[in-house]
């Protein structure tokens, strides 16, 4: 087993090393205010590239070459006519015979642009295969002049021997690359242009992503998708957005291509799209250059899961995924520009069903901070999942008048009378200033030992002792930070009906205390005076992140025989 653990450790280490760049630039970039991706005017550029590549492909017969396996032989184009001059040209290998194959002991290092933001180094046999594939020395054509319409994205490629850079290239996504003379330290302009027409090839003769993975093409009318660009939600479940997804992903020129595992890709400038079909979910990272890294999950059959890359010659412009606002909140709901008079606000975080009431004195300002209603725009499109809270506005009679789901990115959903509307405001600023356990019970920080009785689900009981008391109480009230829960929440009422669903902890110190601890972290707490007469027990309701762990501890203690 030790051998197995060592192998696992080695693989994890390799994986972690490969997927965490040393340069922190991409984190700093994300820390800065997210920039909207520039609207790249790529279509005109790419149209020229497509024409050019189709011409070359027609000459070389490479596109749609069946069974063009990974790192296959690219030598079929040796001696081809130059696509621009129609004169016979020379190949990279003919001009640089010493680089016809990767020199022995050389490693190959890829750096995205010049930023060092993300790099990847390959060694040994794999490096030789990658070198041969990327530069195809026997078939890459020399080009006399700098090509027009070069893509914006490129990689610096270094051949390294014993830690020293011995040769440098610049590789473009469309197959162009420069060889930079070793003596050129950067500005001498001693470089030569080449073009590798086989950089993209079709896997197994597939014509598009849709034909390669037909079972992943969802019904566009029922498309359930999420689009984020640098963590900004761009929109989803919107028909024209779905049309764009289909246009770009499913049909036009989205060719499955060779594995780009060795190529470092930008860490921030990409869109994330997740779309789900009946039996599959597809998660993609989309780069403006046209490259898409995808992962397909099959429901209930993970052995079919598959990942890969595909390339779209048209590139991507993220703006087409954006939803255009169709009005303002102030126009559709003028009554919601401020918190309506006499209303309360409750909220629940994430998937929790437990609502916490915002203190009345803070409610109006809290509402403004979270919703920023003056600036909110009506979107008529569904936002994807994100960090969110649910908010309810309850009128003076206890009726829930509005239910809202508010994403931290500023998008929010209002449900009223069964109608759902999405809005987009500035980034929401919510803070949880609700009343805590220690606000209401400031003196109750310690429970006296040897007096604590636990009553379990089967009505059996045992005495809680020592550190267990401290552990359970600490977790149950989260060190006093447990939040007051809205007792009118349906889930609470439902839970409280099931008296077997919780553990009871009781103790006395002149007063009688009882805390009911539920599996979901809900605590119902009561402090009573044995001499007083109550119309009803003065229960307090709390919810904490660690309440569920207190419940688990009690399960364990019960299983261990108390």
């Amino acid at each position, binding site marked *: *087993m030790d051998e*197995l*653990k060592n*192998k*696992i*450790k080695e*693989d*994890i*280490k390799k*994986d*972690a*090393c490969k*997927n*965490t760049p*040393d340069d*922190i630039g*991409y*984190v700093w970039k*994300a*820390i800065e205010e997210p920039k909207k991706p520039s609207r790249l005017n790529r279509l005109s550029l790419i149209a020229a590239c497509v024409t050019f590549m189709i011409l070359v492909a027609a000459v070389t017969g490479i596109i749609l070459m069946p069974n063009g396996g*990974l790192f296959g032989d690219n030598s079929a184009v040796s001696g081809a006519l130059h696509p621009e001059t129609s004169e016979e040209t020379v190949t990279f290998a003919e001009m640089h015979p010493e680089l016809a194959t990767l020199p022995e002991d050389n490693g190959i290092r890829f750096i995205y642009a010049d930023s060092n933001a993300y790099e990847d180094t390959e060694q040994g046999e794999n490096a030789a295969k990658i070198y041969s594939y990327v530069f195809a020395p026997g078939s890459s054509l020399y080009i006399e002049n700098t090509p027009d319409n070069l893509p914006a994205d490129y990689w610096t490629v270094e051949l390294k021997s014993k830690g020293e850079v011995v040769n440098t290239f610049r590789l473009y996504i469309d197959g162009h690359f420069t060889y930079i003379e070793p003596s050129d330290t950067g500005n001498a302009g001693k470089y030569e242009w080449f073009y590798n027409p086989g950089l993209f090839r079709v*896997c197994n003769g597939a014509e598009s992503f849709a034909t390669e993975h037909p079972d992943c093409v969802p019904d566009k009318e029922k498309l*359930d998708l*999420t689009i*984020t660009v640098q*963590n900004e939600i761009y929109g989803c479940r919107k028909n024209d957005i779905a049309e764009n997804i289909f246009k770009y992903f499913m049909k036009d020129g989205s060719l499955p291509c060779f*594995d780009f*595992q060795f190529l470092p890709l930008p*860490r*921030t400038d990409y869109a*994330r799209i*997740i779309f*789900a079909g009946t*039996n*599959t*979910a597809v*998660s993609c*990272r989309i780069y403006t250059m046209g490259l898409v*890294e995808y*992962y397909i*999950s*099959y*429901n*209930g059959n*993970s*052995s079919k*899961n*598959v*990942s*890969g890359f595909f390339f779209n010659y048209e590139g991507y412009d993220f703006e087409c995924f954006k939803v255009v606002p169709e009005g303002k909140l102030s126009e559709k709901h003028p009554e919601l520009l401020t918190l309506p008079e006499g209303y309360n606000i409750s909220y629940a975080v*994430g998937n929790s069903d437990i609502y916490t009431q915002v203190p009345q004195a803070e409610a109006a300002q809290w509402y403004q901070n979270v919703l920023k209603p003056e600036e909110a725009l009506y979107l008529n499109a569904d936002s*994807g*999942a*994100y*960090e969110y809270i649910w908010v309810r506005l309850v009128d003076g009679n206890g009726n829930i008048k509005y239910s809202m789901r508010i994403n931290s990115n500023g998008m929010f959903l209002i449900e009223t009378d069964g109608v759902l509307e999405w809005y987009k405001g500035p980034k929401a600023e919510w803070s949880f200033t609700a009343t805590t356990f220690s606000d209401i019970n400031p003196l109750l920080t310690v429970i006296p030992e040897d007096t604590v009785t636990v009553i379990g689900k089967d009505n059996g009981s045992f005495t809680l002792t020592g550190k267990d008391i401290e552990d359970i109480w600490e977790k149950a009230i989260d060190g006093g930070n447990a939040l007051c829960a809205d007792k009118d929440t349906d889930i609470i009422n439902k839970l409280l009906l099931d008296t077997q669903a919780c553990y009871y902890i009781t103790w006395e110190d002149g007063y009688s205390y009882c805390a009911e601890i539920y599996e979901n972290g809900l605590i119902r707490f009561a402090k009573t005076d044995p001499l007083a007469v109550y119309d009803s027990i003065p229960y307090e309701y709390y919810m904490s992140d*660690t309440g569920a*762990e207190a419940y*688990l*501890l009690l399960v*364990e203690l019960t299983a261990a025989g108390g």
Partner: protein
Amino acid sequence: MRLDPTVIDGYLSGVKTGSKESFESVYRYSKELLYVYALSVTGDRLGAEDAVQEAYVKVWQNADKYKPGGNGLAWLITIARHAALDEKDKRRCIVVSDETAKKGLRKSHEEAVVCADYVDFIMKNLKENERQVAMLHIYGDYTIKDIAVMLNIPVTAAQWRYTSALKKLKAALVREGTVNG
């Protein structure tokens, strides 16, 4: 690979004062562990990479809340957990727990096993809570007790998850014929 909590505490104390150098130091020191942990939560590499980035963004933005002298490692792990869970939540799709997001060649599962890509193997065969304990223990050399503190779970639960993870891994490998029973 086992990180020294006092070193992390030192770096985070610096980050709290706004030191970019300290932030970059804590990033370089802890990035691989946070990635491994995020991977154990998300179950896929793309999600883990994004979670790590988001986690460090949050470390920088919330550094003022860090209490020097505390368990900096547990603080980092907590932030990474939230970031990784957010990543999972973003997917909210139908098969999140099964996702293994191989980034490599288009290999079938069997091929992946032959190539001894144990990371994929773990993603496929272990539950999320088992992965968390197993990967931290195997990769990070942390004791089960340390991991219990980091993940804020009872030691017995951590021990049970680890034992269960090892049993499942061994059984799966035997089933695939990679190791002998």
